[in-house]
């Protein structure tokens, strides 16, 4: 008995010691890596400032999906580092998964270890930590979309994105089904569904008509086409999501996910990625964002694809989105961060960036040379779209820090899973909006 106890005590002691050691080692390890990765670390930066000239300031650029989109930022960072190696500024990219961006920023804000620069679709959630750019040569007028808050420019629009439709051209051609590339040819939604069914029927290898990204922006694009509004155009405090038109749109989308519908519930709920499924060549069409085209150009080899115009409902509509590039405040390297931004937006550099990544420029007066064909379809969508999406996003921008980004998508997750019907979706969205947004009513 005593022996057992001794043995247990020894084992416990050994375990404790190893746990502590592990704790210490991983702690110091992670501290080192964070300090190395976070060029913007305050203490490190203070040291760097105090250090004699000749010391290099390292700016951490937190980014996601650059490799997937063709590595345009990596190329620009390399160019910058080459040009600035004598001036003591170097940028280091920290590329992480898009889904982890928010968590990472949130956690690093809590411990005061923010990166110097961030490229992300949202800056308003973190407005308290973003560096206002009023001390730089950049102004809001240079950019296509609003990156300002309280009259100051905070975030620069690094690329615009638009929602559009990409089809499996090979499958459509095989089936002898035509597709629209001019305004006159645009499908109605019913015509589009009929076309998809025909393509699926006439191609053995196509088993799904349409995949839609697991994204609020994609879903709301269809809803806009059916006449949905988030905010009343006459009264920005009134929530207008609940309407017959919205209901019609929701029912139409949900029908696509029902047994025998043109789409797949597993993709609609995000368990399987629409982009990956489209690349397998078993799908007729993908309602996507323009940025997938780079990936498709590089990685689809066994069939042809092309962007075509989206169907119309009551309206023609697309949703604009995009990514902002901004500097963080309180990093101790603000001046250097601004230098990078100013360099990046010099027309020559920025044009190069958009050309490599096939991005729709967020800065006015830039004409990139695209290597991917068909981007003009997205520009056609942007020009033909109704104004409601822009109006809604302007109102949403006014609710800075009140994040209802994924409410509609979450409601659809539940609806596709059979937990809500179209009325339930509208209830859910309105309730969440009322909970999250201040000073609004139905």
């Amino acid at each position: 008995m005593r022996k057992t106890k001794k043995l247990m005590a020894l084992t416990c002691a050994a375990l404790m010691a190893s746990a502590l050691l592990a704790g210490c080692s991983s702690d110091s390890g992670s501290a080192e890596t964070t300090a190395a990765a976070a060029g913007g670390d305050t203490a490190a930066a203070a040291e760097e400032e105090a250090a004699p000239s000749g010391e290099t300031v390292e700016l951490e650029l937190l980014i996601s999906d650059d490799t997937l989109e063709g590595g345009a930022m990596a190329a620009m960072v390399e160019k910058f580092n080459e040009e600035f190696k004598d001036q003591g500024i170097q940028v280091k990219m920290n590329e992480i998964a898009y889904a982890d961006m928010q968590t990472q920023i949130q956690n690093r804000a809590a411990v005061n270890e923010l990166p110097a620069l961030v490229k992300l679709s949202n800056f308003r959630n973190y407005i308290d930590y973003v560096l206002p750019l009023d001390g730089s040569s950049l102004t809001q007028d240079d950019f296509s979309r609003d990156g300002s808050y309280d009259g100051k420019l905070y975030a620069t629009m690094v690329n615009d994105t638009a929602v559009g439709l990409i089809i499996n051209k090979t499958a459509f051609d095989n089936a002898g089904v035509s597709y629209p590339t001019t305004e006159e040819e645009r499908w109605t939604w019913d015509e589009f569904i009929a076309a998809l069914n025909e393509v699926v029927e006439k191609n053995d290898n196509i088993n799904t008509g349409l995949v839609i990204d697991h994204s609020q922006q994609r879903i709301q694009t269809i809803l806009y086409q059916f006449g949905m509004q988030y905010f009343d155009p006459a009264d920005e405090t009134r929530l207008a999501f609940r309407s017959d038109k919205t209901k019609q749109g929701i029912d139409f989308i949900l029908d696509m996910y029902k047994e025998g519908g043109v789409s797949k519930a597993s993709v609609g709920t995000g368990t399987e990625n629409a982009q990956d499924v489209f690349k397998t060549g078993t799908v007729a069409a993908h309602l996507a964002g323009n940025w997938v085209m780079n990936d498709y150009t590089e990685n689809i080899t066994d069939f042809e694809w092309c962007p075509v115009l989206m169907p119309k409902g009551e309206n023609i509509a697309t949703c604009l989105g995009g990514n902002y590039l901004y500097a963080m405040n309180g990093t101790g390297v603000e001046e250097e961060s601004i230098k990078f931004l100013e360099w990046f937006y010099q027309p020559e550099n920025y044009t190069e960036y958009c050309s490599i990544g096939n991005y729709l420029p967020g800065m006015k007066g830039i004409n990139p040379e695209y290597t991917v064909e068909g981007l003009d379809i997205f520009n056609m969508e942007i020009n033909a779209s109704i104004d409601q999406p822009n109006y809604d996003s302007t109102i949403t921008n006014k609710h800075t820090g009140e994040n209802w980004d994924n409410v509609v998508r979450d409601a659809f997750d539940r609806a596709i899973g059979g937990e809500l019907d179209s009325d339930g979706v509208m209830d859910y969205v309105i309730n969440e909006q009322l909970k999250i947004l201040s000073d609004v009513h139905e």
Partner: protein
Amino acid sequence: MSRTSQAAVIRRKRGDYRQKWAFLFCLPNMLFFLVFFVAPAIVGIWYSLTNYNGLKRMDFIGLENYIELFKDPEFYKILLNTAKFVLVYVPLGYVAALGMAMILVSDTMKGSTILRILIYWPTLLSTIMVGLTWKWIFGENFGLINYLLESAGLPRIGWSSNAVAAFLTTVIAGVWAGCGTNMLIFIGALKQIPEELKDAAKIDGANAWEIFKAITIPHLRPVTFMVVMLSAITGFKEFAMVQTLTNGGPGTATTYMIQYIYTTGFTKLRVGYASAASMVLFVILLVLSFLQSKAMDSGDEQ
């Protein structure tokens, strides 16, 4: 002072001296516990009383989060989901682990060491890997099982669009990943059952089932309780595997507590509210741990 009381003082002093040493040995662990468990728990309690959004906003709002939480039907749904998962996962995991342990301790089994390693191996994998691996098996469009079904001319199963099927995938993956540890515990316990008892039973004409029922099961009682409680705690905390396997879907059919807390805190930026939910989970786990340690104590006394 009499001799006896002097001796008592010396003994007491000696006792104190030993206690100090004992305390010193415990100190690292206590510090570890204070810094990594108690402190975050206290911070969590504080967060749950605020409207903290994970960034700068943090105002004290009293019990508002808790009041909202207990009125929130979604919270109850998630709690029920989690309870359902635990109720299916724990017994299945128990049977699988015990079954494998019994096969591996049997004398007729060949290559039991290799099998033991193979069965334990999933425990060493990261839970994310477990989720991804099973996603390739249960994938609706890509998955191995659906491919096999289709090749055999059978209809595909909506592993990620059918709520029951998705639930089963999380249970199967959970059992697969967790049963190695429990199997080792059972092997240890099974080996401690005196062979004489079984031999005596055999002489008395008992068959295998009777031996199992009358000898094995009673001897495994303390271990059983521990395994069940530990599995229940693990079940309540299941997160990364489910996140990668089903992403909590379809809808919220396989969203369990930790994922709910995670999305509320980090996606919806409602850290205060999420902290309140995690306090409820904390209480549930506390009760389970309390029961488990009670059972361990009574097991020791026996």
